[in-house]
């Protein structure tokens, strides 16, 4: 059931957006900003209509979402597996962890053109780009999470005669759940970023490609329309992860485990 307070919490940000749109609308008029620099909201809406109802944008939306989801899954699954291995094998941790942290300082966006050379246009290079960007936040948060167990709980399990495997699954993984979701949350936003970057660099499909193409045509309204769609995808994806987070890790208050690692 939606309580009154939750409804208000939902409506307040919408009101903020409405006010911003109003400022946008009248700001352009008052300062006489030409439409080829900043299109009025009406023109963007019209572009959205053209793309969505006319149907020209849908294949691009599908391409972008496909790249986001597959890259996100690849990156996060690799991150989960590797941090699990590292948390269980100390030698591996000392050998691999510093290297991964060092690699993180490479701006992965700079790799985009190389990835296109290696993996071709479209899905291949996009997935690799997104996976690379998603990997680190998920990896670091999971690694921290897998160490954030209560040591007494481990003692207790060892004293019960629990095997290492049992301790891992019954204690360490659930203890890490909050951190893992924090990582997944950061990664999902970055997945969007990675996809668009790859599409901007070289792609024949996707919203990033549409933005690049519209830019050449000076169709600023269409560029804005794509940004609006991307923002919507981002908000929906991040809300979805948050919802799953709250359902799965029901025993932690929401603020308890949020290790935010900036990109």
């Amino acid at each position, binding site marked *: 059931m939606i309580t009154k307070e939750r409804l208000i919490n939902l409506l307040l940000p919408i009101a903020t957006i409405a006010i911003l749109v109003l400022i946008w609308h009248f700001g352009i008029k008052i300062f006489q900003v030409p439409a080829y620099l900043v299109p009025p909201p009406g023109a963007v809406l019209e572009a959205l209509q053209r793309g969505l109802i006319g149907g020209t944008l849908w294949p691009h939306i599908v391409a972008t979402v496909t790249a986001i989801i597959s890259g996100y899954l690849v990156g996060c699954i690799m991150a989960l597996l590797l941090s699990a291995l590292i948390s269980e094998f100390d030698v591996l941790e000392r050998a691999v962890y510093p290297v991964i942290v060092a690699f993180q300082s490479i701006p992965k966006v700079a790799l985009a053109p190389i990835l296109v050379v290696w993996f071709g246009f479209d899905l291949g290079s996009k997935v690799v780009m997104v996976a690379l960007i998603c990997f680190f936040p998920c990896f670091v948060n999971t690694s921290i999470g897998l160490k954030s167990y*209560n040591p007494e709980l481990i003692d207790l399990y060892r004293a019960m005669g629990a095997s290492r495997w049992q301790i891992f699954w019954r204690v360490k993984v659930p203890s890490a759940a909050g951190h893992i979701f924090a990582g997944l949350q950061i990664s999902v936003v970055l997945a969007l970023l990675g996809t668009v970057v790859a599409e901007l660099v070289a792609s024949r499909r996707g919203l990033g490609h549409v933005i690049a193409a519209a830019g050449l045509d000076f169709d600023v309204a269409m560029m804005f329309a794509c940004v609006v769609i991307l923002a919507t995808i981002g908000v929906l994806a991040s809300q979805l992860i948050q919802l799953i987070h709250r359902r799965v890790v029901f025993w932690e208050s929401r603020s308890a485990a949020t290790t935010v690692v900036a990109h």
Partner: protein
Amino acid sequence: MSQANAKLSLKNVSVTYRTSRGPLDALGPMSIDVADGEFVAILGPSGCGKSTLLKIVTGLLPPSGGSAVLNGVPIVKPRQDVGIVFQQPTLLPWRNVFDNVLEPIRVQGKYSQEMHDKAGALLEMVGLAGFAGHYPHELSGGMKQRVAIARGLIHDPQLLLMDEPFAALDALTREQMTIELQEIFERTKKSVVLITHSIPEAVFMADRVAVLSPRPGRIIHVEKIGLQRPRGLDTMALPEFTATCDRLRRLFTH
């Protein structure tokens, strides 16, 4: 007490940790026997090696010297016939009360309908019959510790080991829990080792109180408690109770 009927027998047990500043004697050598069905309290100040003793009896730490024998078998590694209650309840936050109690059984792969019923009975014994489906974050500190006690008893251990089980509770709850644990002990007749730094708690519950010296912990005194069982609130008012507490207190303030 003869060695033969001892449930737990520690003989010249000592522990020396290797540290960067050279060897550190943490415990002993110390010897003590716990008979079948006997309640022994280990009383000592902080840093007398109480936790080290706990690790030896649970098999988490091999003694540097001497021997520890439980139920006739030397303790060389963790084994499944010891129940443990820590100072903190250490429950799984993601499992409800009932599943927390059953956790040792699940880990040891011995789940059965009989165990299921036993978990229910234990929860009733610790006064949590109506809370089986609750999660730890919905319980008070005292209730969580009761769950931990039920969990410590579920696999019918030879020995129940308790490490300052009530230290994290407020004074009122603590007193109530002490009396309740006493009743539980009367009913289950388990061998119990209670590690504590509360003199009245030790005297009230134990058959014998072993007093440890500061590090390295050695037994400097063993007090046999002759107070009649069952013990209750009235026991604490007895002159004998007060006198015993007083005698033990003097050992620490000489």
